[in-house]
């Protein structure tokens, strides 16, 4: 499932998958601005068929946080 997550992040942020790490964030990826962040949330909701809460949307600034939010919705990640 992590592969799928990384695929989506790579597509939305327009960076190679190899650049994406657990610690990747709006700080470390140049293309990750608030707009892309929202597009990413949107794309993840479709891909994993979940609906994030406003609080989760606000706290999705790193790959680590996104993984935690996905786990909250019962998505199994390795």
């Amino acid at each position, binding site marked *: 499932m992590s592969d799928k997550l990384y695929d*989506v992040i790579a*597509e*939305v942020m327009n960076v190679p998958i190899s650049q994406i790490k657990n610690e990747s964030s709006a700080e470390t990826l140049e293309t990750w601005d*608030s*707009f892309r962040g*929202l597009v990413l949330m949107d794309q993840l909701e479709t891909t994993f068929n979940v609906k994030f809460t*406003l609080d989760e949307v*606000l706290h999705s600034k790193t790959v680590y946080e996104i993984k935690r939010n996905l786990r909250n919705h019962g998505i199994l990640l390795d």
Partner: protein
Amino acid sequence: MDSESKLSYYIAKSESINHSMLEKKIKVAILSSFTLIGLAEVFCVKCADKKVSCVTYVSGYDQYNQDILNYESELYKFSPEISFLVLDTRSILKNLFYSPYSVSAAERKEYIDRRASELISIAKTFTRRSNSKLIITNFTVPTYSPYGIYETKTDYSLQDTIRDLNFKLNSGLLSEPSVYVYDFNAFVTKHGENNLFDYRQFLFGDIKVALNYIPYLAEDLMGYIKPVLGINRKCIVLDLDNTLWGGVVGEDGFEGIELGPKAPGSAFVEFQRHLLSLYQRGVILAVNSKNNPEDALKVLRDHPYMVLREENFASLRINWIDKISNMREIAEELNIGLDSIVYFDDDPINREIMAKALPEVLTVDLPKDPSLYTPRLVRLNDFNVLKITTEDAKRGEMYLQQRKRSELEKTVSNMEDFLSQLGIKIKIKKADQFTIPRIAQLILKTNQFNLTTHRYQEEDIRNFSHDKNMLVGCAQVEDKFGDNGITGAFIVRKDNPSEWTIDTFLLSCRVMGRGAEDAIMAFILNEAKAEGVTKIRGQYIPTNKNKPCEDFLPSYGFKSEGEYWVYSANMPTKIPHHLELLIE
């Protein structure tokens, strides 16, 4: 229904557009009362798909007023060709959105009156200062009211305020030639407010159209961009079996095909009714089908449930020849480009062959289920025009007349006899409020007999027509079979008292080859002579479509001089004797 790609797809793709490979260019401004992100990227991708390079200016968050009112703003420096002003109900109503009944009905009405006149005035200010078309959105009627079921028992209710605002906006801008109101409320109705409005995105970033729906909004708004670029389409070419009716007439027989009030035949009736409505609006219909002509024509002529009849089709190619050749012949016969054609065929293999061989033709990916033909058709926004003129409504009739002319042409032995039997009359008309919309239409879409292919918008033509150093006019062509309407246009620049330059000279393909161009040129030259002009310059700027008028200037007697062709006033003008020239 066909669905749009996700916004993330467009954003990724927008970064890899190679603008230098694109043929045309358009400048688009986006102004909004809320965070409207992604729209510019989708426009760029959708335009690039049509070989158009789209450059955008996106106004700052809720900065539209300042941008329009300040003459020095970046907006005017950008000088857009088309601008979208996207507004929303919450921003316009402010606190009234939440507490509509904290004030009286009279106060609500006064508030709306004020907002409406502000918006109308801002739209007018913008179009006076800019040559851009302005598309302003109307407002979503709220679906929620604190009054609940009592809402519709209330005088000038919350919902009425928006309905009234929409009405006032529309009527206040109806006669503004370069302002269009986009029915955003209808867009919301079509997709549903619950889908379109995402509270999280709204609360997080004042986003009032959910990101997922930005591509749909962009697709709707492309309906304005296409006609501004002249990349809209004019003609629908149809297959017959399983497209206009169910089944194969050669096998199932006249009585066996599915077409009538009961399902599944009703799907085809519904589809035909929508095609007829487009025909009545000026879209040309034609048939490209592999059938025995007798079988198919019998259905077109005699089937009790056919909506479209033989006379609705400008061209019929019913034979066993390959569809590619037929398609080329249809384009040639109707004198339109392949890029003006939309093709409907139920057979995926035929579609694939067509799309490969003639990529200029828009081959519609028709769903398997005939009940989905109609929604697929009505979703196409390729037939949009910025103005529907009387010429458009008469187009179908004109093609019938054209067929009769061709028949006459076949019966007479030479061209001269044919032309003199037609009894052609050319009426030269000035550019005025009645003719300017049609002149602009011709200038934007005429490709073949067009000496310079300068494209001007309606506002430009209006300005030229008021300029005493310009001569702008048009020609109406009639003959014994009917009126072709305004089918020629010209713009001449009076450079100085002794020299004029023909900036634009064009003739619709509808009347090519009948000497009308000579008569129109004679009119211009005679006007020039009457004003004491000694030298008239013309120019031929080659494009990949205007070969038909390449020899016009030299054959009329213009002499080559650098990049121009020059006519001296001491030379005679010529009007073919089969024509009658009238000046209004």
